[in-house]
């Protein structure tokens, strides 16, 4: 019987062992891609041959819209650039506009900005933690992450009335001063949250299955990471010091004592560890900010109409939750910017996905994608 079967097969074609590559679309509607990312994946069985991200499903031309709005109006659009970390985008834009328009900000407003951006970093990392664990198949950390994120959002809601797109950090300061009970509630949250980070680590960090799925997966050397233009925790996971809060301190980060979290593994686990440690650093930064913050105005005196000086340009860079975020503005003497450009970390971080997943399994695409912490509106804008 076997002889008969074998005789029908042409030995030269090697068709017994030959396999075909096939293409699978992961996304734009897929339970694991964060948002509407589409990955065209070429597979050979389970092995990934090529991963090609297809962008543009969430393109809303925010940069172009900003050129048709006055400087203060643009703030609401920056919220939508990175909806998981809206405060950072607010801050990056506001800082660029202030540089362009030469505006001095009162110190209390600066401290408030720092508090809110760091709280936002906690919220963003918690969302990332949940999504990352969910990508690896553990659903429970997702709900743990959202549980604590809810507390952060409550603090935001108490201050500016919004829970996702805040429009809180404005040109010249912040929208409104915090309520008197904010400081106490914030401290209570920080004490509560600091213990919770240990709880997440207990659940995941040294879980053997988690280690199997993340150790050595998506490895990238420091040199390659720099060449690909990775940013933020994804780059620090490769052992490169790149925290803008340390290297080009903005706001009052130079007066704060905090550690830049670096991990040297270069794999998914290291990127995970960097973010987990960063959450602890955020707690310490916010505590110090609350100590330093004195009374005073929260908004600078601004002229009734803000006009960008003709031909002048300004670039601001901050360390957003996902890495370096820059805003480039050019004025032309009118109340509207002549050019507005966002430099977002997610775009660069996504570009490396093909390199990191080639030769690995399908399941690793999700692990790598999760560990890079990509937010689609930041990629597409």
């Amino acid at each position, binding site marked *: 019987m076997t002889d008969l079967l074998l005789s029908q097969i042409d030995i030269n074609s090697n068709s017994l062992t030959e396999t075909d590559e*096939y293409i*699978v679309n992961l996304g734009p509607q*897929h*339970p*694991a891609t964060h948002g509407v990312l589409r990955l065209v994946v070429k597979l050979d069985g*389970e092995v990934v041959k090529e991963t090609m991200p297809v962008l543009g499903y969430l393109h809303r031309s925010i940069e172009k819209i900003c050129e048709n709005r006055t400087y203060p109006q643009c703030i609401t659009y920056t919220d939508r650039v990175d909806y998981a970390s809206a405060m950072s985008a607010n801050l990056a834009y506001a800082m660029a506009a202030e540089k362009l328009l030469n505006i001095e900000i009162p110190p209390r407003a600066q401290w408030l900005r720092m508090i809110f951006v760091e709280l936002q970093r906690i919220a963003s990392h918690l969302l990332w933690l949940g999504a990352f*664990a*969910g*990508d*690896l*198949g*553990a*659903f*429970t950390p997702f*709900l*743990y992450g959202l*549980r604590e994120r809810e507390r952060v959002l409550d603090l935001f809601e108490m201050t500016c009335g919004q829970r996702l797109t805040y429009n809180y950090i404005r040109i010249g300061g912040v929208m409104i001063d915090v309520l008197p009970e904010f400081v106490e509630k914030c401290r209570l949250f920080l004490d509560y949250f600091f213990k919770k980070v240990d709880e997440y680590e207990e*659940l*995941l960090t040294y*879980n053997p*299955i*988690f280690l*199997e*799925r993340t150790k050595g997966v998506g490895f990238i050397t420091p040199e390659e990471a720099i060449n690909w233009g990775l940013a933020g925790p994804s780059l620090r996971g490769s052992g490169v010091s790149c925290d803008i809060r340390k290297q080009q301190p903005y706001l009052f980060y130079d007066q704060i004592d905090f550690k830049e979290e670096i991990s040297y593994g270069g794999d998914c686990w290291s990127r995970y560890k960097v973010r987990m440690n960063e959450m602890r650093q955020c707690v310490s930064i916010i505590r110090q900010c609350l100590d330093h913050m004195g009374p005073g105005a929260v908004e600078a005196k601004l002229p009734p109409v803000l006009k960008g000086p003709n031909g002048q340009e300004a670039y601001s860079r901050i360390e957003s939750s996902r890495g370096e975020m820059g805003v480039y503005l050019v004025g032309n003497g009118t109340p509207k910017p002549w050019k507005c450009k966002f430099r977002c970390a997610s775009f660069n971080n996504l570009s490396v996905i093909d390199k990191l997943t080639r030769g690995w*399994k*399908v*399941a*690793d*695409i*999700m692990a790598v994608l999760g560990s890079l912490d990509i937010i689609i509106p930041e990629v597409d804008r």
Partner: protein
Amino acid sequence: MSGSLKLLKLINVILEHVYKFLGLTNPIPEVINAFITAAISFAVISVFVMFLVWMERKVSAHMQSRIGPNRVGPFGLLQTLADAIKLTTKENMEPQKRDKIPYFIAPIIAFVATFMGVVVIPLDKGVTIQNLNIGVLYIIAITSFTVIGILTAGWSSNNKFSLIGGFRSAAQIISYEIPLVLSLVPVIMITGTLDLQKIVEYQAHAGYWFVGPQIIGFLVFLTASTAESNRAPFDIPEAESELTGGFHTEYSGIKFAMFFLGEYISIIIGSSVAVSVFLGGWIAPAFMNFLPVPGFFWFVIKVLLVIYLIMAFRWTFPRLRVDQLMDFGWKILIPIAILNIFLTGLWILWFSKGV
């Protein structure tokens, strides 16, 4: 005589009266009796599965600091019924280019194959739906039919995700079948029988449960049976973050419900076998012997405890990757199981217990 056995006798007596009334011959034809027993066991198991789905949702809710279903019925107990009604009355969406006949048959194979395993589970002393002297072998043989259903589903859906899911499932179930069987072999060596009822009786006579001397076998069996029923952390065939829904991506309505039921029934069977073989089946724990409750009660309690453990696995661990899953099965579980057989052989030889 225990309560559930009385129930079966009662049904028989009622049936005999009905037959006399109709003027038919006595005793009842075996075939009719079998049909009625099957119908009753089907109903009981279905209700039990509904309870399990509710339990799973409550367990996961508890583990994730949520409340869980609490709207339909007391404590949300009827939530599963509501879901079942929703699934059965749903429009049956089918992909246009499916392979029609396999697509239709697949969920039936998967469901029936798992369901048939229920037959030989010893519910109480002397109470089994149909006692077979090769019970262990029968269960292992019949439940591995599930893979045919899943593979058929993956192939006939004409969807790449389904296909990957189907093949993953085939690889997984075939690999984990081996440690599953090997983990049961030592117990069979000690008791010298394949009859589940007799294995439980052996434990009753011996005064200990096999979970003590066969702890390795128990752990291997628990792991392998979790993998057999495609449950997390071994749920790679339906890994929703990679394959959307895996082999049942294209199934909806009642056909999806059959896969869903099949999964839960295979959990029931897995934990029932674990309880019968390793945890003393219907035997009451020694310190609770004085309680006047039937063995069936203890059996259900033990099964629920094992199921709770399997549910806790699902909501704690991340999912393994497909190659790691294979490595774990072939390089860790199988050698351990074989070593366990070897050690048990030496044990029998030296202490000349059992056969």
